[in-house]
């Protein structure tokens, strides 16, 4: 009994140490793939997977100036960490000023925001109430045509 407890303790300790040692570099290696046109293309591909019904949804806050301000605040709080303060893209996530995003329907953006792209490191954001997610979509849509930094060496530090 004492021996098996020692084995359990040692196993758990080794697992914990291994997690600590390998997790962070692995996280960096897999989730923070340096942005290239190819990785951005993959990320934008999620928009194409939006179900037709979700894509057709109208933004209830479209054209609402207050929603743009709310969306800008929420974007800075929750999205800028990865996508960059000006949505130009960061090490982890693609630009939201790109044509692929700006030409997507508000419904498609809302769907991706709600469901995340978990395999590529984007969490689900359904914990934000629906009006707040629509406000973020409204703000992203105002970035159309605004020039952003080129893909490649953008960071948000």
């Amino acid at each position, binding site marked *: *009994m004492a021996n*098996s*407890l020692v084995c*359990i*303790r040692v196993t*758990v300790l080794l697992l*914990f140490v291994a*997690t600590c040692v390998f*997790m*962070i*570099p*692995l*996280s*960096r290696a*897999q*989730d*923070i793939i340096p942005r290239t046109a190819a990785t951005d293309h993959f990320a934008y591909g999620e928009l194409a997977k939006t179900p037709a019904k979700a894509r057709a949804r109208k933004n209830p806050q479209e054209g609402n100036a*207050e929603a743009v*301000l*709310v969306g*800008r*605040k*929420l974007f800075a*709080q*929750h999205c800028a*960490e990865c996508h960059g303060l000006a949505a130009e893209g960061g*090490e*982890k996530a693609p630009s939201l000023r790109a044509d692929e995003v700006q030409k997507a329907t508000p419904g498609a953006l809302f769907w991706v925001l*709600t*469901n*995340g*792209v*978990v*395999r*590529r*490191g*984007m*969490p*689900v954001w*359904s*914990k*934000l*109430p*629906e*009006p*707040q997610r629509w*406000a973020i979509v409204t703000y992203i849509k105002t970035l159309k045509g605004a020039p952003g930094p080129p893909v490649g060496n953008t960071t948000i530090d």
Partner: protein
Amino acid sequence: MRYATQLQQLKMKFFTFTAVLFLFWGARASPAQESPYIVTYDHYLEEPGNLEVEYFSTLGTQREGDAFHGYWVEFEYGAKAWWTTELYLDGQSTFGESTVFTGFRWENRFRLLQREHFVNPVFYVEYEQISGADKVIKEVEGHDVESDNTETNALAHRTLNHELELKLLLSKTFNGWNFAVNPLATKNFSPSNPWEFGYAMGASRPLALNASANSCNFCRENFIAGVELYGGLGDIQSFGLHETSHYLAPGVAWNLPSGWTVRLSPGFGLNNDSHSLIMRWGLSYEFTQFGERVSRLWERR
């Protein structure tokens, strides 16, 4: 030789201290959207690379013993968008007795489905190495009852429990409401202890679904109110509600734009085997891009 070793140890301590200071100093805070749950889990995991440091207190009254103050510190790290790992350090003070460090827990949560569904399952696995004096009541399982906690610290602290805890976290957010149900099963590695079962469930909602355009501390959307219900369901030999404890706990979370979250939750015992009142509060802070900073630190070395 001995002095050289001591010097080396001193250097290591200094390096560790400096590194930790650098990591926390440089890290940026992120305004969180934390639920008011203290026992129940929803399906939302920590954002990848972020570290959330949390402190929680449980003040409990006992009919046949002194009141106690259980507390724990949590380090919650988003390893992936689908994997969160957490380390807990537990302790407690029983009034009129002593203060003891009661052990640690290592918890991992794995999101099972890539997208949002009608119900979103997350698999939870935890290893605990805690003494019998632990009184944080982070979960209620098996035949946990109030009288378990009346044993003196000196006696209870002699028992060391090694436990595996499994949970299925089921959660759904709809129209601003979150509903979560967590069935749990626990096995003490001692062969004489059977599998024990328990449950936790909760519902919560922000006080406002629309956000204001300005950053504000007291806006209604920063407050999320909810209620939790949790308790034991006996063990594999005597499954059911007999000699089990159950609690109903309303709670509120205040998410500040500065990155701090304050939680408050009084829990009321629902039967004679439960503590009459357990008062909980917690404070947490989320550091963004913590993982990247650690990686960069290693690169520099």
